[in-house]
């Protein structure tokens, strides 16, 4: 089985198949919107993958390995037929797709999966994350409104940088992709130690206590580092960090509130798009005050 466009530079790639993933159609709509808008502004064409299905997320691979590969495999096959590289915005989807395409290299696994999805897989698409695509044309970004004086804590989470050989788009301990971007946009990426510490992933319902504890650590660290906001590239990280800040304050007493935004929103902002266009007003922890204080909103 060959992997289409497995080579070739991203920078040269104009059009991509786009895999928004479930959250971007609901809780993370602002990510979807800002991604589409800023990509358009950058001349990147996103063609939403026709009939994509859920990647299975952590639930699938927590309980049924085969399912965890088969669900993404179906999407990979479809994308393979389209022939464009498949760009995922959600880090979870990205990770699942990437791992799946990795597993499919193994013949036995592929045969098994083919029987499960009831189709033969000739070729799959190369999987990339939106952050990689943007980074590939960093110098070409036409910054209209530099985000001067905005201190940003870039938060990568787990799924973009681990596991090293199957997924990682950057170093696991001190990644730089997003920091580079933020700097390019005129903002100041703060140095902090929790870029890749886990936020509690899919446990907010089942073990809120864990999620609150982990998020509290991260938020506190970001604040300490003097960040005005945290930039993320994953809807799960976002909802964990953004939605529970009141509870966290209630539970831990200290005020560790920091607005959490998507890197695409910052990108859009710098490209001259408005707060409303980018749904920057939709977050539970409102970033608008701090943005306007910097004259950015």
């Amino acid at each position: 089985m060959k992997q289409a466009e497995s080579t070739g530079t991203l920078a040269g790639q104009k059009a991509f198949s786009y895999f928004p993933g479930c959250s971007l159609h609901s809780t993370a709509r602002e990510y979807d919107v800002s991604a589409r808008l800023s990509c358009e502004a950058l001349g990147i064409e996103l063609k939403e993958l026709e009939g994509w299905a859920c990647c299975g997320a952590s639930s699938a691979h927590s309980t049924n390995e085969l399912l965890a590969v088969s669900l993404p495999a179906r999407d990979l096959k479809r994308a393979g037929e389209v022939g464009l590289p498949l760009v995922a915005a959600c880090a979870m989807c990205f990770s699942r797709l990437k791992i799946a395409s990795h597993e499919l290299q193994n013949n036995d696994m592929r045969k098994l999966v083919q029987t499960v999805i009831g189709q033969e897989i000739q070729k799959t698409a190369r999987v990339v994350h939106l952050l990689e695509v943007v980074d590939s044309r960093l110098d070409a970004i036409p910054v209209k409104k530099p985000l001067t004086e905005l201190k940003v804590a870039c938060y990568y989470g787990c799924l973009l940088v681990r596991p090293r050989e199957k997924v990682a788009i950057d170093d696991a301990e001190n990644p730089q992709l997003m920091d580079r971007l933020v700097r390019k946009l005129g903002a100041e990426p703060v140095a902090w130690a929790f870029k890749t510490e886990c936020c509690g992933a899919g446990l907010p319902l089942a073990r809120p206590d864990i999620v609150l504890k982990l998020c509290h650590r991260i938020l506190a660290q970001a604040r300490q580092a003097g960040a005005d906001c945290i930039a993320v590239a994953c809807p799960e990280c976002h909802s964990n960090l953004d939605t529970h800040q009141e509870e966290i304050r209630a539970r831990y007493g200290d005020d560790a509130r920091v607005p959490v935004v998507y890197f695409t929103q910052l990108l859009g902002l710098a490209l001259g798009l408005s707060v409303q266009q980018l749904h920057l007003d939709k977050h539970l922890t409102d970033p608008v005050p701090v943005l306007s204080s910097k004259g950015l909103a």
Partner: protein
Amino acid sequence: MQTVETITPLPQSRLSGYVQKHSGQNPLRCYQCGKCNAGCPVAYAMDLGPRQVMRAVQLGLKDHVLSSNTIWVCLQCQVCSARCPMEIDIARVMESLRLLAILEGYPVPEKDIELFHRIFLEVVRRHGRLHELELGAMYNVRSGHLTANAGLLPQLLSRGKLSVLPTTIRDARAVREIFARAEAESRKAPAAES
């Protein structure tokens, strides 16, 4: 996990064989330095730390491992794997142990987590995609935590962050079949009796 007064090591047990085979990781490489425990964000909430799980696997203490909450609490954040000095993919080991526990019907100490996963998949099975409102609602009802995250509901709705109706993809049937076949196939998977 049941308490164990004295343990009887079974180094030759099928358990470490299974782990080796299923996860491709050799448990005997672990020399118990503890870096995994040290870095695990949820170690504090586990009855056995990753290091202890590796140890128990080395010693073939199957029940000890498979009935621990560790394998359920594990977030798959991969920090342990990324930092292991012996390059053991510990997260992968956790995963294979959890799958084994499911296969062999071990009681699940983290009911809610298991329930969450089950409902999540049911929803996806139904629509081919996730419908978060549905997931949340069903979870709250079936877990009995009726108010869990309910506080957030108005804010989310007001911001249009929760779509009330699910989007169901055109050939959701295909997805349902995938679920069915995947479950059938993985039941055939080899277990590790010891």
